[in-house]
């Protein structure tokens, strides 16, 4: 205990450590600025500018500091390495795209909450002990509960928020319980110490139980079946900005942090843990894809598609943190595709004169005329094919990395589940395209929609650009050389 809180050396901060903290300080500054803006009752445009400046600044500083030396800050609380910087870059881009969906209704406290949540997400994969992990997880989750339930006017919105809050609190309690058990058995929260105890001695049942409880609560955060119940409601009914943010940025960070934590604290060497991850992953792939096939609402379909994709990502949890690049590329390309798809749904909603995209059903899509939604239809196509993993779109690259890593680690049978899931996924991705292209139903006349925000369009364009850049960067990255992606060797 005292090593974390009462060690005097942690207060001597060096120059490298301050540089390492820069991205997080930028976010903190952003939180201050947006809070002041709320107090001054600033307009939506001001909030947008602030969010853009600070999120872009966060992403750029992360990008600029890639290649700097690794630093540990405050003992085991934060370890800043290239992996964390890459994740920060991805988070910044995803959060920036999601922030474009913030509407008149939600601005204000919203931007502050979003930045706090990003801060939690950005810190989470840097944790090297379970206390820090818990603190960061709550930092990202609590603003999420507020954002989900705040100013809900749509049907089901409040229900979704409450469901999320209750289940989130439940998951947090489970995480604490798991941490307590692990601490009880090992006497430490430090990943490294726990790992040594697990690897060197016989892992006690206490540690095994603790690890499983921690897994369950993390599974809740990334919506793995059977802890996925909140996902469909939130993705459908929550404000678009929040849904896009949680599906993209939230998953990226929590999955990467989970892999680092499970690997570094030695949980992955436990057989029961491995089996549990496999069960979560297979259930998510099968149930997620099956449920997605049966939905009528588009956002619910995408929500279940995201559950299935969490299943593919969870397969990587069985490997080690050497597979972080594969996990990262997969989640980032999927998240960007998801973001573009959500942006297109917003474009469709305004073309169909619906107040928001929450109520778009498959049957509505066939009314979309050529005219003004042409770009939306095109972007949607690219996003869907990317998420489905059809080459040469970027989503394919991510899936390929995951499959290769699984294969190399000797998990050949698991790759068949991913292939099966991809095939099932194809059915509902193509189902979205059918009314968009292949139906010759009566189209809505292409009237200009007054007062429609151009932000979804901006988000879709930026998302596509980010996907393209990502494809270029990740394809050209030489994993075989010593300096591999994310600084992992």
């Amino acid at each position, binding site marked *: 205990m005292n090593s974390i809180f009462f060690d005097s050396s942690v207060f001597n901060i060096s120059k490298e450590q301050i540089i390492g903290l820069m991205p997080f300080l930028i976010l903190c500054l952003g939180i201050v600025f947006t809070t002041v803006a709320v107090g001054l009752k600033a307009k939506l445009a001001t909030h947008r500018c602030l969010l853009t400046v600070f999120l872009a600044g966060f992403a750029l500083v992360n990008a600029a500091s890639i290649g700097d030396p690794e630093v540990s800050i405050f003992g085991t609380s934060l370890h800043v390495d290239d992996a964390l910087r890459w994740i920060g870059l991805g988070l910044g881009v995803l959060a920036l795209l999601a922030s474009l969906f913030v509407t008149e209704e939600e601005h204000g406290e919203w931007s502050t909450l979003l930045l706090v949540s990003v801060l939690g997400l950005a810190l989470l994969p840097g944790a090297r002990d379970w206390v820090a992990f818990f603190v960061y997880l709550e930092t990202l989750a609590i603003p999420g509960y507020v954002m989900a339930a705040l100013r809900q006017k749509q049907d089901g919105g409040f229900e979704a928020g409450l469901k999320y809050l209750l289940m989130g609190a439940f998951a947090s309690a489970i995480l604490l319980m798991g941490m307590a058990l692990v601490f009880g058995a090992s006497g430490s929260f430090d990943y490294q110490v726990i790992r040594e105890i697990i690897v060197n001695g016989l892992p006690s049942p206490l540690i095994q139980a603790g690890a499983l409880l921690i897994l369950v609560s993390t599974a809740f955060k990334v919506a793995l079946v059977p802890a996925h119940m909140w996902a469909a409601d939130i993705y459908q009914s929550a404000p678009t900005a929040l849904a896009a943010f949680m599906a993209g940025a939230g998953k990226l960070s929590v999955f990467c942090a989970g892999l680092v934590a499970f690997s570094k604290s030695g949980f992955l060497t436990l057989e029961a843990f491995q089996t549990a991850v496999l069960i979560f992953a297979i259930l998510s792939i099968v149930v997620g894809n099956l449920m997605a096939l049966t939905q009528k609402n588009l956002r619910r379909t995408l929500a279940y598609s995201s559950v299935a994709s969490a299943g593919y990502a969870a397969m990587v949890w069985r490997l080690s943190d050497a597979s972080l690049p594969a996990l990262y590329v997969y989640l980032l390309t999927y998240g960007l595709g998801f973001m573009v798809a959500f942006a297109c749904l917003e474009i469709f909603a305004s073309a169909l004169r619906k107040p928001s995209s929450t109520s778009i059903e498959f049957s509505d899509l066939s009314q979309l005329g050529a005219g003004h939604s042409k770009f939306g239809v095109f972007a949607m196509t690219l996003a869907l094919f990317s998420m489905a993993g059809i080459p040469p779109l970027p989503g394919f*690259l991510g899936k*390929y990395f995951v499959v290769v890593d699984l*294969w190399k680690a000797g998990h050949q049978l698991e790759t068949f589940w991913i292939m099966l899931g991809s095939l099932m996924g194809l*059915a509902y991705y193509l189902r979205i395209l059918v009314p968009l292209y292949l139906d010759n139903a009566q189209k809505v006349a292409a009237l200009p929609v007054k007062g429609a925000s151009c932000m979804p369009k901006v988000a879709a364009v930026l998302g596509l650009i980010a996907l393209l850049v990502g494809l270029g960067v990740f394809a050209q990255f030489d994993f*075989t050389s010593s300096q591999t992606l994310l600084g992992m060797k």
Partner: protein
Amino acid sequence: MTTLMLLLVPLVGGIVLFGFGCLPKRAAQWFNILLHFVWGFFILKAWISFNPEQVGEVSWSWNWMPSIGSRLDLGVDGLNLPLVALNFILSFLLAFYSLGKEKLGASYLALFSILNAASVGSLLALDAFAFYVFWEFMLIPMYFLIGKWGSKNRVYAALKFFAFTMAGSLLMLLAIVALSSQYGTLSWNALRDAQIPYDGIWGFQGLVFLGFLVAFAVKIPVWPFHTWLPDAHTEAPTGASVILAGVLLKLGVYGIARWGLGLFPMAAQEVAGVMMVLALAGIVLGSFAAWKQSDIKRMIAYSSVAHMGFMVLGLFAFNVEALQGAMFQNLAHGLSTGALFLIFGIIYDRTHTREISQYGGLASKNGLLATAFVFSAMASIGLPGLPGFIGEFLILSGTFFTNKIVACVALSGVLLGAIYMLSMLRRVVFGPVGPTLEAHEIKLAWNEWVAIVPLLVLMLILGLQPQFLFEKAKFSVEWILALMASGWGV
């Protein structure tokens, strides 16, 4: 550079064609023809400068994905060049066919051009990953071509096409993943030189080969993976049917020859028996199914299943005659079936029915077109003097060396082919004028003749002077067989 242009011209042209959406349809259609002239120039250049003494020579390489150890290696050899030329010829003639068609606007032509880029890309690719990328990418334009411009059941047919092919391809992807994790390279030459050791069909080489084989078997299609083909062919628009029959199915045969026999010779020998039985099933059952069809396009589709069975026989007989025959028949069948789909497509444009019973008396309505139709059907049956005969004869005589019973059973397919084709011709071309033809005038525009006639001339040339093609492919074919016979020099 020429090799790259073979791929780049249709790709860039396709993207440019999307921009023609706001211009009149004619502009896009003429631009498409111009594009084919440019493409044709490079094809001609590749054909002339082609060195038949090379197999798998990489003439253009780009380190496009070092992160997965894949290079975009492109190369021309005796296995792929004839097919690239066939792809060009069919697409070029279709460019003329689409002139003046109100429905076939910029986006149709753009998708078509991108489909060409993908199919040429997978033909030229000498890297397994690059091959897979192009192979899968073909599905996207084809999905839209069938789904958007097809007839009544098009959505179902498009989905079935996509799902079947994708299911097969995913197993190939796993095989590629396995190769990449085992050998760290995906280049065809490097993998061949690595001489993947063989230890039974359930060993490494065997399983990887099976992964590839399933993908190709679905595409060819080998019985019992063929059920997507009749639907896709029937519902697809004319152009897509022609390219599907003329190029995409042929890619399966090509794929087995290069990626199957070339890399996994022992595994291929192991499954030869099973593949021969499946090929026979395809020939016999496909022929009977074709006989019973009342829909002309469906009938031609089932006849494709039967004819593709011959090519599978040729691939797995492992001698020069059969393999040369299979590669030759690939072209011959592409031309004859392409012509059948094209000619019937032109008739269908006017009558809008595919029921055989509605037709009759085409000969008395438009004698020239009827002649062309009969000519193509004869080429498909395998009448001496036309290319189908040469291909099937070589395959059958080659198979006869390997297995006499198989050759005899396969021979029945030739007979059945004559029966169903001739009975279709009798009901469509001859006899009294049927209700549909009574109601519709069958007059062809100049550009439709331009599309048909070269096909017929080419068939005649191939039927009478096949030698120049054999010479192109001779070295590659013998090289593969030498490889198979050597058994990695053990």
